[in-house]
């Protein structure tokens, strides 16, 4: 029993976690014909809380309530792992990255996000504001503009062989590549 828990506590390799993530697609289809996706929940929340007469938010969001249950489940699952199934060792990344990030003062690998960048104090600095509020805005804008996020397009869309999803996924990768390599360094230097 303890051996199993020890194995579960370690990070799972890609060839285990990847296929399991892929199985979310048939799971949701079989549970009730639902299309796997995360970011549409943002739209449903807006429609539920402040439709404000915007046509984009005028639809029966209650029909999509399953998605809100799913997304809150994701939060609970993440919380569960952090409390009971987390690895005491830190995330192990390429030494080149460790060296590069150290130049920006990022040395704490204990959390999923670097606590030296994302904390309450830095929320009141330009860098923190750009990274947290600016990022949040871009996530909200981008997922609606593309009609989906990595889950909806890359996993669900590609699984069902949809061209728009392939285009979206390629653009996500290009966007991420440009941001991480060319834009983020100047933000980190702020």
């Amino acid at each position, binding site marked *: 029993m303890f051996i199993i828990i020890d194995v*579960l506590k370690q990070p799972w390799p*890609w*060839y285990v*976690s*990847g*296929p399991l*993530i*892929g*199985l*979310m*697609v*048939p*799971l*949701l*289809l*079989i*549970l*009730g*014909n639902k*299309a796997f996706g995360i970011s549409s929940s943002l739209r449903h929340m807006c429609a539920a809380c402040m439709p404000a007469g915007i046509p984009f938010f005028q639809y029966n969001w209650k029909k999509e309530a399953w998605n809100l*249950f*799913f997304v*809150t*489940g*994701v*939060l*609970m*699952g*993440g*919380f*569960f*792992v*952090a409390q009971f*199934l987390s690895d005491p060792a830190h*995330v192990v*990344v*390429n030494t*080149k*990255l460790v060296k590069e*990030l150290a130049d920006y003062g990022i040395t704490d*690998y204990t959390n*999923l996000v*670097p606590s030296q960048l*994302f904390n309450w104090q830095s929320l009141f600095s330009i860098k923190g504001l750009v990274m947290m509020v600016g990022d949040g805005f871009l996530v909200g804008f981008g997922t609606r503009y*593309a*009609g989906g996020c990595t889950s909806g397009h*890359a*996993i669900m*869309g*590609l*699984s*069902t062989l*949809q061209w*728009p*999803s392939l285009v979206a996924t390629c653009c996500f990768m290009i966007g*991420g*590549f440009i941001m*991480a*390599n060319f834009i*983020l360094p100047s933000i980190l230097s702020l």
Partner: protein
Amino acid sequence: MEDKWYQLVKYRFAGVLFGILLVKAEVISWFRIQEMFRLQSFHMFGVIGSAVVTGMIAVLMIKKFKIKTVDGESIETHPKKN
């Protein structure tokens, strides 16, 4: 059709499962994402790639064997709308 709350609970469980996977696969780690876009690790590409392949095979099998939902509905995949 609107689902009743007790029909929605199963999606909560599916979500919990997915949440556990996201953390254990480290795909929501800021460090892993930086590593991926700097092409310094195969991990993320492995996760996304194998997830897509698994999903594709699963959808193909659902169509081929005409697998139904737990409530007996036939499964349809709709094109993504913007």
